[in-house]
């Protein structure tokens, strides 16, 4: 074999391999790509994964994520409409929907994150500061119903255990709606960057640290108030039971007295009528007998008496006749 030809073959295979390698590329699942020629995008973005061809060397492939991406915001201190200072921490999910616009306007993911940060922070700030704190905390008015239900229950039971304290404001929008409002506004603004916002979540809302201290103080005083109330209700209930006891006691005793007196009175009335019925038949004789009985009862065992012999009993004793 001519050595020159062999040399040529090896050279050609290297060159061919290089050309093949630089003219194909893999688009993996979950990615999209755009082909650029001297930095200028060529053709429409590629979204379907698989094996692709391009011009060697002069065309470059720029990969972008096709998946849902996360954006993590910095906690922001925002005053609400009702002048409460809170720290709001948001996160968002977004995706690149227009790869071409995306590379032209923000170049890469890092650039996008910066844009997202600016826009989302501003919109979040506007939205939160246009609403009262409760709108960002609560989602529904369930708590109001719950509190009503609780109160009704407590009225039934007569014993109040614990209650929801403080004024509970009605909400008109709620957390979920605020976050979707933010998402919608952000989405509109970010469309021009080829970005779509899927959702925004108010991940954390907390009191600013100086406010937090005051909130804790309020919570403490509220709890103390509730504790006092519970104690006083206990004492009230105790007094109520004691009162009931005293009432019942007097009722029972007086009723017993009344009944006893009634029985006794009736009995005595009957006794009187029995005697009356018997005695009308011989009242003089009754007087006599009753007197004798009285004598008999009047003298106790061993009593001393001095009798004169001229008494009726000793008539015989004295005269013998």
């Amino acid at each position: 074999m001519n050595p020159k030809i062999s040399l040529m073959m090896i050279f050609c295979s290297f060159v061919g391999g290089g050309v093949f390698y630089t003219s194909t590329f893999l688009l993996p699942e979950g990615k999209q790509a755009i082909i650029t020629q001297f930095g200028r995008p060529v053709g429409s973005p590629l979204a379907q994964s698989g094996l692709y061809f391009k011009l060697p060397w002069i065309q470059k492939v720029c990969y972008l994520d096709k998946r849902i991406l996360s954006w993590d915001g910095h906690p922001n201190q925002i005053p609400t409409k009702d002048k409460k200072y809170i720290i709001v921490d948001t996160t968002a999910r977004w995706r690149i929907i227009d790869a071409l616009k995306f590379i032209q306007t923000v170049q890469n993911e890092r650039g996008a994150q910066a844009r997202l940060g600016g826009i989302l922070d501003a919109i979040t700030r506007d939205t939160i500061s246009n609403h009262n704190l409760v709108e960002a905390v609560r989602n529904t008015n369930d708590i109001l119903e719950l509190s009503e239900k609780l109160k009704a229950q407590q009225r039934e039971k007569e014993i109040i255990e614990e209650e929801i304290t403080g004024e509970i404001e009605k909400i008109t929008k709620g957390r979920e709606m605020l976050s979707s409002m933010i998402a919608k506004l952000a989405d509109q603004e970010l469309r021009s960057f080829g970005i779509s916002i899927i959702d925004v979540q108010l991940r954390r809302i907390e009191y600013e640290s100086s406010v937090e201290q005051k909130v804790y103080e309020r919570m403490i005083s509220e709890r103390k108030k509730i504790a006092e109330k519970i104690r006083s209700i206990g004492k009230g209930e105790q007094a109520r039971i004691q009162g009931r006891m005293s009432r019942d006691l007097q009722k029972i005793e007086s009723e017993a007295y009344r009944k006893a007196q009634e029985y006794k009175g009736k009995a005595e009335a009957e006794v009187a009528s029995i005697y009356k019925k018997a005695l009308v038949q011989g009242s003089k004789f009754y007087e006599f007998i009753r007197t004798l009985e009285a004598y008999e009862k009047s003298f106790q065992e061993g009593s001393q008496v001095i009798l004169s012999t001229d008494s009726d009993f000793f008539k015989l004793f004295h005269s013998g006749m």
Partner: protein
Amino acid sequence: MSRSSGPNSSFNGIFPEEIQGVFNQLRNNLRFLLLGVGVFVIAWGGFSGFYTVEPTEEAVVTRFGKYIGTYAPGLHFKLPFGVDRVKKVKAKLVLQEEFGFRTQERFRKNNARVLKESRMLTGDLNVAIVEWIIQYQIADPRKYLFNTQNPIRNIRDISEAIMRRVVGDRSVNDALTTGRVEIASEAEKLTQEVFDRYDLGVRIVTVKLQNVNPPELVKASFNEVNAAKQEQEQAINMAEKEYNKVIPEARGKAQRRISEAEGYAIAVINQAKGNAQKFLALLKEHQVNPLVTQKRLYIETMEKIFSRLKVIVVDPSVKGIMPLFTNPENKIEKKI
């Protein structure tokens, strides 16, 4: 290769000779070179032509970057040389994310970041510390890998946001006591809904609340409320105890009083009846012979009386002996 020529040898004369030498040597070694390359290629192809999937895993296979299937545990073949690529996902394992605490030793030191996860506002604008876990399984490895960039971060973010939303609709009391189970199940439901919206490929096994506490600074006052509840109960119990002690006894006593009165009534009536009977009987006799009966009764009575008395009989002519009887213990009855 000839290295005999010095650095100052003629450039023109040596060059073809040099190449010729290299080429000859190359041709001699080409056979071995090709053999080596061949063995290498076959070995590479052989080793990259199969893979095993562990029992807890599932394998997601892509061909030229394109998804072709998800495979169960076992030994599988694939196209070699990186044409088919395998990503293994722990699809069977129940995975867990923790919020507000970490069970793993190296995260034990509760740093501020971890604590922040659990601090949240309740519907009555109080603060509660809620710790919870979420357990999940990768239900669809393909979705898990290719639909979101960072599934775990999404899981954490969503779970935090949802938990706050659920707790935000409750009073602090509810969250601390009776609402726990409901909160967990509601959070589970809502979180799964969001996961499905993202097509995350994750199925929640459970969401469980761990410790739910008031903030450290406020804890004492919450305990005070509990203590007050105990006191309340105790006060009521004491009053009831007293009531139960007194009232049944009083009822019994009242009953006794009534019964006694009834007894008295029966007794006096019977006595009266007896006396009346006796009187009527005597009267009857008296009517037959008034004087005799009267006398007899008189004498009988006197007999009864005198038999138990100390009788001193004094003749009417010795009146004025009274000072003799000065014994104060004895009752002195006057003359009949």
